[in-house]
């Protein structure tokens, strides 16, 4: 049960974790790999930072822990799987829109090609 409201705007690594979970449930290591690939190596999540972020995201109800699926690929033991919640989707979408706004401004100022 969420105990505090999510801060706005989202921490960058929180945003990336939510993006990783947006279309599928993943465990911690898979989230690290997904973020690394999607950001082209620009964001490198470390274990402590990742698990703390997952704990805080669960506290405020943006993600929830689920039972691992039977066919889940595992890397060392039986890790916890995480799923984004509806509130998490909304928070992630809001952050994406915020960032898209910045991109639109940058395009208008011809810093970026359309």
């Amino acid at each position, binding site marked *: 049960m969420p*105990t505090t409201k999510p801060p706005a705007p989202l921490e960058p690594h929180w945003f990336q974790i939510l993006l990783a979970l947006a279309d599928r449930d993943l465990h911690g290591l898979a989230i690290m*790999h997904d973020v*690394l690939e999607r950001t082209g190596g620009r964001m490198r999540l*470390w*274990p402590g930072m990742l698990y703390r972020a997952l704990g805080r995201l669960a506290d405020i109800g943006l993600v929830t822990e689920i039972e691992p699926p039977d066919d889940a690929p595992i890397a*060392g033991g039986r*890790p916890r799987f995480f799923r984004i919640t509806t509130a998490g989707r909304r928070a992630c979408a809001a952050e994406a829109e915020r960032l898209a706004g910045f991109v639109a401004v940058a395009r208008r100022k011809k810093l970026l090609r359309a």
Partner: protein
Amino acid sequence: MPRPSSAFVRLLLRAYPRHLRVRERDALEAACIACLARERARLGRLGVPYAWRRLIADTITAAILLRVDERRRRRLAWHHSQHSAPKEILMTRIWQDVKYAARLLQRAPVFSLVVIATLAVTIGATTAVFTVVNGVLLRALPYRDPTRLVLLQEAIGEMGPWGFSAPDYLAFEARAGLFESIAAFRNREYELSGVEPPERVIVTRASATLFETLGVRPALGRPFTREDDESARPVAVLSDALWTRKFARDPAAVGRAILLDRQPFTIVGVMPNGFIFPQRGLLINNVPADVYVPIAFTPSDRRGFGSMYANGVVARLKPGGTVTQANVDTRALVQANAREIYPAALSGLAAAVSGSATPLTDEVIGRSRTLLWVVFAAVGCVLLIACADIASLILARAMAREREIAVRSALGAGRGRLIRQLLAESALLASIGSVLGLLLAVWLSRALVALAPSTLPRLHEIGLDARVLLFTAALTVVTALLCGMLPALELTRPRGSALKDGSRTSTGRRERRIFGTLVAAQLAIAVVLLVGGGLLLRSFSKLMAVDTGFRVERLLTLGISLPAQGYRDAASVRGFYSRLLDDLSQVPGVSAAGASTGLPLGVRDLRVFTIEQESPATRELPHSADPEYVAGRYVEALGIPLKRGRYLGAEDAAASEPVAVINETMARRFWGTSDPIGQRIAWGLESQHGPWMRIVGVVGDVKQGALNTETISQTYVPWMQVSDGMIADNVVGIMRSLRVALRGEVEPTALTDTVRARIRAIDFALPVTSVQTMSEIVKRSTAVPRFNALLVSLFAVLALLLAAIGIAGMLAMSVSRRMPELGIRMALGAQRQTLFAMVIRQGMITAAAGLATGLLSAWLVSRVLSSLLFGISPRDPMTFATVAGLLGVVALVACALPAWSVTRVDPLKALRAE
């Protein structure tokens, strides 16, 4: 690429919080290794130390922050549970407790039904009585700001209080600046015709200021005005009930004419629904009116000093005024007025006249307060006894769950949580009981209203309202606590032995003391109720033994009032009654027929008189007597004994010497041991009086008012010798409205049809009212003490029954639990009789404790009943002794059954159980 040391990574992982390590050790290790590999791949050999440094920093930071997060989570969770437990969590727990309690009760259907039935009856009875108390005592009178209304009364010396005479009221009204407004009113019965069918109605003749004083305006039309009053205009305002009954609530009724005593009156207004005036409960003018007309004092009224103290007066205090001040001012003004306006010869009376002001609410309900609160206290006591019984039952049943409670406590359930769980059971029982009780209360309150004396005020206002519902809800909570708290506290009391292997639940000394205390308390309350009921019953029987002064049996009475239309003058009125009494005397089965302006046990009037050649010793006494104008053989019909001289007779006609017969009280007071026969008295003052009347007889005293009131001076004057003017007067109409009394040789009800036929033969259209036997009149006059005695005694018997069940139940349970012990005793040689006596002794010790406590409590509180008792002291020793004996016998019988069961114990079976 060489792999990093997994052992070192595992060592590093020990910095994480334990719960994370336990669950995620492998995943964390894999993640750490993946990070090290990632950095090595990105930065080459130089990335390895960088990766280790980053990993160690990340681990240490995460270890600290994860612990901080955990602590914050725990702190938030604690705060939620302590200060702002989510409503959902609390409600969920309560709902769980209720469901669990319901399951337990379902498994014990007999117990549940007995308890629910007991609670339904006792809560229903308590709510029903409260409904009556609420309607009569607690609801405000249906007037604007009723706390500002006072009733003004006059008294003459020790006699009174009475109403105001007309001249006294007019003088008071002219000078009563101490009140915001003031009004006089007086009731009279009229024949209502002009709308079918004709009937007798109560008409209140009132000042134009009455409705303004009460603060209620007609819902339709207008009130009558001062001009209507002063010019005696024939206008009328109807009550809502009459308008509904006679005109089907048609607004076009305003402006129509009705006939009162065959005189036309124009309807100018209709009072709103719920408006009732005058209220029952007042001493005089106490019948709610159907019609209001202007009081229109006649010149004769205005000269009536020292007589007809029969006008009720109601006043509204000015803002800031107090009742105490109004009382003082009224007394002073009445005395000042009397000294100023009374003729000189009436100076003695003027000096004795005084006034008072009391809150109208107190006058209406004051005489009913003690009665109703006593009945309420009685039914409350029954409820208390029932709660004590149920508490014993619940405790006995809950003791079987001692081990279960101990286990829950050992697993961490707090005492509060356990108590709440146990209270859920009694709360559920009380809730179901109170819902059923409320339904029962609707029926019971109607039954109470039907049984209640008709003189009880505001009976029509009794009904369920928000206050009654709130009372029932509060009663449910209190009952649940009374029934459940003791068992809950006792069962959750910490004790060490409940969980020991092989330990049995047992009735220890403490439990025996608790049960004994509960039973003793029930018995004590039952004793108090029995003493109260006993005192009221004895008081009632003493009241019924009071000599009324006349023969009650086989006496039929009825009321006739002659309207001015058809009986315009004195001759026609005299002619009607003469013919009527002659005819009725000849009805087979009638041994004597007469008529009078009033009957015994009714409301009395007072008239000033003077004595010719009076002894100086009696001059200072108030010279007021109740005048009774009688026709035919009235005094003989009532069976009033003749003490000296003769009865009034046919020879005492209009043309004969005016005569009078007085009662023993008047003879004793004014003539002492001398013979009053031949002495003369006259109505009025010494200087201005009516014709002298010679006293020709002295008759026995009759009870003029209620049976428990003092007898006052009374005169019987031949109605035929009353002046033509008074006979013909239709404003007050006393002499036109006589009560006929018939002494029968058969049951009086057998005469009713014949009597009606004889009256119809003389005047077909004349309604006959108040046909009742004297026995019914006596019964009605004792309705209040009868009601009181009946109810309190009923509750006392119920209380005794419940208490007897309580003591029997306690002993039965005690015997059942001690069965193994008793078996051992028998096996060791104890006689059955010895065990029988032991059980009886245990029960009677408890009963004796309850009896002693109850008698002492009754001794202390019985004085509350003083105002309700007649001829008996509230500490009557006979009553107390009878109750003690009765309770002793009942307790003995209640103990006998469980004691007898001991004698049937089979020692072998009992030992096998052990």
